[in-house]
């Protein structure tokens, strides 16, 4: 439904989404981008400090270790995993895959995407796990 159609319907109260578990979950998923934006702003600050020099970079690493910053970024990590969990189950519904005439089970497509997350994590371990 496009927004011009919605505007002709009686307006919803701002609290409409509190009335059902499904809508609350939807709003939580929408809110996962808030800690993500915080992390990205941290990353941009890190890039600025990297351009400024070694002292500035050390200062940024110390800033990232401040309890409140660490806590918000842990929230961003949880949010990314929650987003992934809700996002991966959509793939087989939006684009069911067929191989040699047989449709791939939904669980296989979801597992394949989690394998992707693992591969990226292993790539980071290879990059940063050794000095």
């Amino acid at each position, binding site marked *: 439904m*496009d927004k011009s159609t919605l505007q002709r319907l009686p307006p919803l109260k*701002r609290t409409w989404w509190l009335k059902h578990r499904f809508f609350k979950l939807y709003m939580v998923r929408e809110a996962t981008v808030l800690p993500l934006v915080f992390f990205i702003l941290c990353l941009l600050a890190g890039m600025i400090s990297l351009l400024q020099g070694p002292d500035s970079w050390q200062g940024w690493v110390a800033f990232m270790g401040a309890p409140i910053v660490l806590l918000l970024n842990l929230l*961003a990590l949880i949010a*990314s995993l929650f987003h992934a969990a809700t996002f991966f189950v959509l793939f087989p519904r939006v684009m069911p895959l067929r191989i040699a005439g047989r449709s791939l089970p939904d669980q296989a497509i979801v597992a394949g995407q989690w394998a992707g997350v693992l591969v990226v994590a292993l790539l980071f371990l290879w990059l940063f796990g050794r*000095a």
Partner: protein
Amino acid sequence: MNVNKPSVSQHDAHRRQAYDEPLWWGLFSAGGVCFAVIMPAVILFIAVLLPLGLLPAEALSYERASGLLFSIPGLLFIGAAVCLPLFHAAHRLRHGLFDLSLGNDTLNKKVMYGLAALLSLLALGMVVAGMLN
């Protein structure tokens, strides 16, 4: 005639508004894939393990971090870990504001996608600046 005119122009405005939606939706989807597949590892290593001192001392030293970021792979990394997730977030925030009836969508849309574009250009610009240094 006078009655018809505004409704016709309104109709055109809606058509124009809908015309660019595939672009925002495409960026939102691509950003969603990045958010789900790469961001968990990015956040874990850079924002959790690094500040807790759980990475080897030289893993992200100033020299190593500059070398990795200020390169073509670094530019691609910023595209996937900053730019696309920013457009994903902008789309979700725009629709979140609409769901909560906050502000008006025409303005929210410009502010959200505008900020995402501005910060993306800033991030990519910084990588290029670092490469030229």
